[in-house]
């Protein structure tokens, strides 16, 4: 088994509690996420703000300790890996952050930012490390004179290129990208997406791509998982999910992201209310409070994931 496999991942946070902290409450940010990213493929994780997709991506790389569930990479259990094993795994699994303004240390030059990972992992001598940093910098499309500058001297798009260079300098097999373009201007988004596309083709990278933007997911991902309130409610090949969404939530999401074509005019969907609080999730199916097709059963029990077509899973009582 190669690649990343995530089974029933859970991540709960406790807020409050303790001395004078009031009653402790559990925020179920990630309740049930299962997915797999085969080597060389690109999986999208999509959902609206607050659905737990970012938390899930962080828990997968153990930037947050998962509460329960199993994450394996090439058969190695990530959650129970020893510090030494984890260091080796970290070399192979990298993260691209959403906010290019917060993800670079403003006091370190680009050279230091790019050479430090190599140094920490004991790769090469100083001359080799310099060469590799220079190679990766030009690979992400930045001039060599950027090397001795500091993050504040760059624009958002350039910073994101640096963030991508830092993630790739260790030559990982898997890159988890948490909304890598959503903090950027639309024109810059396209540049960065094209860069990621090029890099993926050149380097046989696997991607777990987290986004709230269906357009980006459609462009970039072979497989898509739709998340709602900590659950993966639907997963399958991107094309099929976009053309023929099954879960009522996916249908809604799909309609909220119109195609710019006057012949295909759609009514904006009338979705009621906000996403419920993960600190106080509804009973049964998490989506029943807003689902236009909910019935009694939906309030009672959580639907299990069913395979409705090859490689296509839906967690809904309608199927």
């Amino acid at each position, binding site marked *: 088994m190669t690649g990343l496999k995530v089974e029933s991942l859970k991540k709960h946070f406790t807020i409050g509690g303790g001395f004078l902290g009031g009653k402790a409450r559990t925020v179920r940010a990630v309740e049930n996420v299962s997915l797999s990213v085969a080597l060389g493929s690109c999986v999208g994780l999509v959902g609206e703000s607050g659905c737990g997709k970012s938390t899930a991506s*962080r828990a997968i790389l153990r930037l947050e300790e998962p509460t329960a569930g199993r994450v394996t990479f090439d058969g190695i259990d990530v959650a129970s890996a020893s510090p030494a094993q984890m260091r080796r795994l970290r070399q192979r699994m990298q993260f691209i952050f959403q906010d290019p303004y917060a993800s670079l240390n403003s006091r370190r030059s680009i050279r230091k930012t790019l050479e430090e990972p190599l140094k920490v*992992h004991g790769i090469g001598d100083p001359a080799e490390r310099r060469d590799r940093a220079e190679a990766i910098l*030009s690979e992400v*499309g930045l*001039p060599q004179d950027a090397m001795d*500058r500091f993050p504040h001297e*760059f624009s958002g798009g350039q910073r994101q290129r640096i963030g991508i260079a830092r993630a790739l300098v260790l030559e990982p097999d898997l890159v988890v990208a948490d909304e890598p373009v959503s903090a950027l201007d639309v024109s810059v988004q396209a*540049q960065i997406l094209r*860069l990621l596309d090029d890099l993926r083709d050149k380097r046989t990278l696997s991607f777990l791509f987290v986004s709230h933007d269906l357009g980006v997911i459609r462009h970039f991902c072979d497989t898509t998982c739709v998340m709602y309130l900590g659950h993966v409610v639907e997963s399958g090949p991107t094309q099929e999910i976009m053309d023929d969404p099954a879960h009522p939530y996916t249908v809604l999401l799909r309609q909220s992201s119109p195609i710019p074509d006057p012949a295909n005019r759609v009514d904006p969907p009338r979705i009621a209310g906000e996403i419920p609080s993960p600190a106080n999730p509804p009973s049964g199916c998490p989506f029943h409070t807003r689902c236009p097709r909910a019935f009694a059963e939906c309030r009672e029990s959580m639907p299990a994931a069913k395979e409705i077509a090859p490689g296509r899973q839906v967690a809904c009582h309608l199927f």
Partner: protein
Amino acid sequence: MTAVTETIPARKPNVLLQTLNRNRLSWVGIGLLALILLSAIFAPLLAPHDPLQQNILNRLEGPSPEFWLGTDSYGRDVLSRLLYGTRVSLLVGFLSVLIAMTVGSAIGIFAGYVGGMVDQLIMGLVDVMLSFPTLLLGLMVAAMLGASLENLIIAIAITETAPFVRIARAPTISAKRKEYVEAGRALGFSPLRIMGVHILPNILSDIVVVASLWMASAIRTEASLSFIGLGVQPPTPTWGGMIREGFENILSSWWLVVFPSLAILLTVLALNILGDALRDAIDPKLKGES
């Protein structure tokens, strides 16, 4: 390879220097401090007399062309003693704050980064330390260790460690949640590297600003401890010691107390101005508030 059409913007001017420039008062503080520092370094050249040489014939003389600031009850020149006393004050102030800053920041960054029970335990101890008045704590430690220059430095360092733990911990907790720290973890950096190489430089400015304020406090504490006889022992001239010796004759010979007090006042004032100016320069949002 994708072509990048945007150019990299030019380097931004140094904001710190700009803000310091805009604030005239800060230059008064810096100038005053430079003057004090120079008089400490060049005390042997500047002092008109030997600070230790007693001359019973000239005892308790007021300011005169020969003894600008008068003489004390042993006939020693007050100006010379004041200049030499600057050395002790600055040395104690600087070294004790350096020790307190190093130890306190290390503990504070550790507590903030590790969090949980360890953090609560450390902060509990810090609160206990902070609940003692600085002078009382210094007094206890100095009395325990015995009076000498080294012990005085250690005593003051101990009293000022707790505030630095607090000052280092708070920005560490906010830095810990920043994505560049998470990026370090994702890249497999050790916690020690993240704390020392990534968090420390980012919170150092917060710490240095406060250090200049605490140095003023250290100089005050040194003077107070010397005043009650727990500091550097006579005949080494110290400002606090001079005030104590002059105290007996305060009604007849005012210069014995007034000039060392002024020296303390000016030094503390200069350090406080510098601290405030540095804080304003680093955080322009606080400008105008004191």
